[in-house]
């Protein structure tokens, strides 16, 4: 079950966020922005404090109630995926989300890389994919 998807640009700004589960607590717009900035910071810190040199930053945060996956692309865009703790094959899900993003955001001439994403086709395709995953789980 996918709870939420956030996309954070390379400067730490939130460019896309969507909740796919009604049971989540609603955050205000400002709180989402703060959360994105915090995750961006944590990602940078985790990369620095790792005892192994050259480590990437935060990849997975596990709790009793959810798992938070983080994937950073080569250009520094971060995808945050929040799922149920028992969700499997999150890597594949993440790849697919990245693919949808590449298709419908990067190939869309009306997208401004630093601005929040407003692309109908992206949202529609993402929703279709999330429904497929969530439908299979429930």
């Amino acid at each position: 079950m996918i709870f939420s998807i956030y996309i954070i640009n390379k400067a730490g700004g939130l460019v896309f966020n969507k909740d796919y589960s009604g049971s989540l607590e609603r955050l205000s717009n400002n709180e989402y922005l703060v959360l994105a900035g915090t995750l961006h910071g944590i990602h940078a810190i985790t990369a620095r404090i790792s005892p192994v040199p050259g480590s990437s930053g935060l990849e997975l945060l596990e709790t009793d109630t959810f798992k938070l996956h983080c994937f950073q692309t080569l250009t520094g865009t971060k995808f945050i995926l929040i799922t149920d703790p028992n969700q499997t094959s999150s890597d594949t899900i993440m790849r697919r989300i990245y693919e949808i993003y590449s298709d419908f955001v990067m190939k869309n001439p009306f997208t401004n890389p630093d601005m929040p994403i407003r692309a109908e086709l992206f949202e529609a395709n993402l929703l279709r994919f999330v429904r497929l995953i969530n439908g299979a789980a429930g």
Partner: protein
Amino acid sequence: MAGRLSMVNTASFENSRYALAKKIPILDRTLSKGHAEVGISAFAFLFSEMLQYSQKRVNGIQDLERKLADFGYRVGIRALELITWRDKGGKRETRVLNVLYFVHSVMWKSLFGKQADSLEKSTDNEDEYMISDNDPVVTRYISVPREYSSLNCGAFIAGIVEAVLDGSQFPARVSAHSNPMEGYPGRTTLVIKFDKSVMEREKDAEPKR
């Protein structure tokens, strides 16, 4: 290939590298040879850049559509030449329906890898025809923002079709319109309005009864 040869002897490795560098230039290749395919991503990125380039140089949506159509025209006039040569053995169409069918099937197939989804005659006007594509390759990844809602990037295809018709001596005005249908949100209809001269000639060409 080159890697394996190099293990055998260096001379033939050098030769094969030389052969690669001397690949036949595009202008010297035979025209009739098959249909080369282009990656859809490569095309989508190129088209996206074209749109962004045009957007900086126009005032308003109509201007942008006109510019896209101009780009299309340049493609179409060349495509017509090539497609008639490859698929029609150099023969051109003389009747309205035939030329429309040529656009709908032969041209569409050569450019987009499939036929257009429908070809209709307008019920209101004698000189108007419609060609529709349910999911045009050109606009597959494009989400038009609300403030541009009247823009249809199919204007590029309209330009191609206009050039093909013009080049075949069927001057016409072609415009692209979004025409979403259930299951096909990107469906685009090209409205083709033929010049008066074409319709008059068509009347004369009809067999006398």
